């Protein structure tokens, strides 16, 4: 900790003086980006160790750095009445570390969210859960992948361009005949290149402008399930799978917006499970 503080102090001093840090110092200290990041993102609020409470699942080595599956899960002990209010996913060494922030609706009962992200370097990944006690709980994992952010999106560029904004909503059957109060699972998918702005045309030397879904919200009836604020680390064709508790509403609705201001909205009937 002392070392970290010294490092932050040295770095800020160097910045104030407008001087670059000596190369030797930078090289000998493969510095951990997290303390400064955490301070920035959570404005100095204390982060408690979330081990046992918050789960963060990612493959150790990603098959495709542009599509790395990640699952965040909050598991409370029996009788604990707290609930999840907010989840933040941070990929420390990505160009824009905050991959996505999920605000959970008051009675949504969401405990698990899975998505797919781009990973640009071998990096720590942090998940921070804010529970209804207004405390923050953090866990981390490490993932080996590289180049995911500058990796070009479309494998089939014509198909991708033709289908932007198309959405699909899936509702999964519960494993057994579960009571209505038991958590259910659903998935929202939206077609979008989610261009990171880091993909460079080698001929023109220009960068493809960033163009990504920056807001998305999912509703059952008029009740918010979750809303997401996303960055360039979310993979092409953003995809969110989540558990929730049904409120009996007849429809699900998704509203999304991208950085060009284009809006997408669609509704689906709830199916009997």
């Amino acid at each position, binding site marked *: 900790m002392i070392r970290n503080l010294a490092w932050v102090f040295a770095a800020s001093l160097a910045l104030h003086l407008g001087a670059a840090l000596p190369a030797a110092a930078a090289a000998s200290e493969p510095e951990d980006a997290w303390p400064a990041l955490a301070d920035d993102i959570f404005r100095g609020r204390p982060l408690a160790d979330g081990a046992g409470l918050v789960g963060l*699942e990612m*493959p150790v080595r990603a*098959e*495709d750095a542009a*599509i790395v*599956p990640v*699952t965040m899960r909050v598991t409370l002990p029996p009788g604990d009445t707290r609930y999840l209010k907010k989840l933040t996913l941070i990929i420390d060494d990505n160009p824009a570390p905050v991959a996505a922030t999920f605000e959970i609706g008051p009675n949504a009962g969401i405990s698990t969210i*899975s998505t*797919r992200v781009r990973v640009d370097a071998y990096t720590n990944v942090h998940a921070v859960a804010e529970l209804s006690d207004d405390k923050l709980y953090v866990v981390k994992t490490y993932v080996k992948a*590289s*180049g995911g952010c*500058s*990796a*070009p*999106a*479309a*494998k*089939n*560029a*014509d*198909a991708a361009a033709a289908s932007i904004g*198309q959405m*699909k909503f*899936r509702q*999964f*059957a519960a494993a057994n005949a579960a009571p209505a109060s038991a958590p259910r*699972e659903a998935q929202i*998918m939206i*077609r979008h290149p989610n261009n990171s702005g880091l*993909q*460079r*045309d*080698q*001929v*023109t030397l220009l960068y*493809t402008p960033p163009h990504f879904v920056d807001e998305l919200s999912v509703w059952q009836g008029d009740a918010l399930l979750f809303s997401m604020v996303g960055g360039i680390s979310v993979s092409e*064709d953003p*995809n969110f*799978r989540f558990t929730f508790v049904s409120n009996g509403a007849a429809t699900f609705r998704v509203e999304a917006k991208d950085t060009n201001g284009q809006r997408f909205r669609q509704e689906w009937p709830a199916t009997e499970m």
Partner: protein
Amino acid sequence: MPNRCTRHGRAIAFVAVWLLCIAMPRSAVSSDAIPLPVREIAVGVHVYQGAIAAMTTENEGAIANLGFIVGNDAVAVIDTGGSVRQGRRLLAAIRRITDKPVRYVINTHVHPDHIFGNAAFEEATFVGHRNLPRALAARGQFYLDTFRRTLGDELMTDVKIIAPTLLVDDESRLDLGGRRLRVTPWPAAHTDNDVTVLDEATGTLFGGDLVFLRHVPVLDGSIKGWLAVFDDLARIPAQRVVPGHGPVTAWPVAIEDERRYFTRLARDVRELIKRGETIGAAAKSAGHSERTRWELFDESNARNVTAAYSELEWE
């Protein structure tokens, strides 16, 4: 190249030509390049068979099959290899066999193991799928950056992204003088910019990476598209195929292994999606009945599943 000079040089001009030769830049005469070992698999059709391996510094990126076809007037090169060093060695192999000019370089698709040798052939006309310039624009810089890490600075120094200027939109023919090549563009399959090349004289097909043997197929386009082109591929009137990876094989029996692989992969992935399994879980199990039938299965299958899943979940 000195061969070419001496062969052309008449006694009187010999010394002058020789002086010209040694005065030319080394890279232009590629006299330092050890010719790639090539095999003449049909009259005038020469093939280098790449290693079944990933691109590394040690193998100079030489993992793809490359070839050249010699006509009465000119030569066509099909893919240039995984480094400029390999491209120069291919050129040296050509110069051992003929001094005719390389008129065309056909890039079968965008992947680095097929195009990184392009800079060894800058005077030729580059031929590719109409989507190839777009794919090079989107991926070229990424390939230059990532492969610098795997191949090292020395091999990457001269690598340049060279886009085709002769774009193939429909089936087209290239003339090498008394010898015609049929270049066919395909819908999205291995990539969204695959072409095949048929030497009509010998019935030799260069399948590019639409055809894999022994080396597990790699999916970077569309699994549905790939499954959909097999019947049309099989109708190409060829005797034999030079696959993108793997041994030269009789046609069309050569595609049956990969057709089976993708049929099973699509079936497995669809079943897992239907059962509500996640993409991560699918990557661990789909296609595993094929595991013992392919080399490099563990390196690429899970990635193929990821690509197939994110395509098929939209059905």
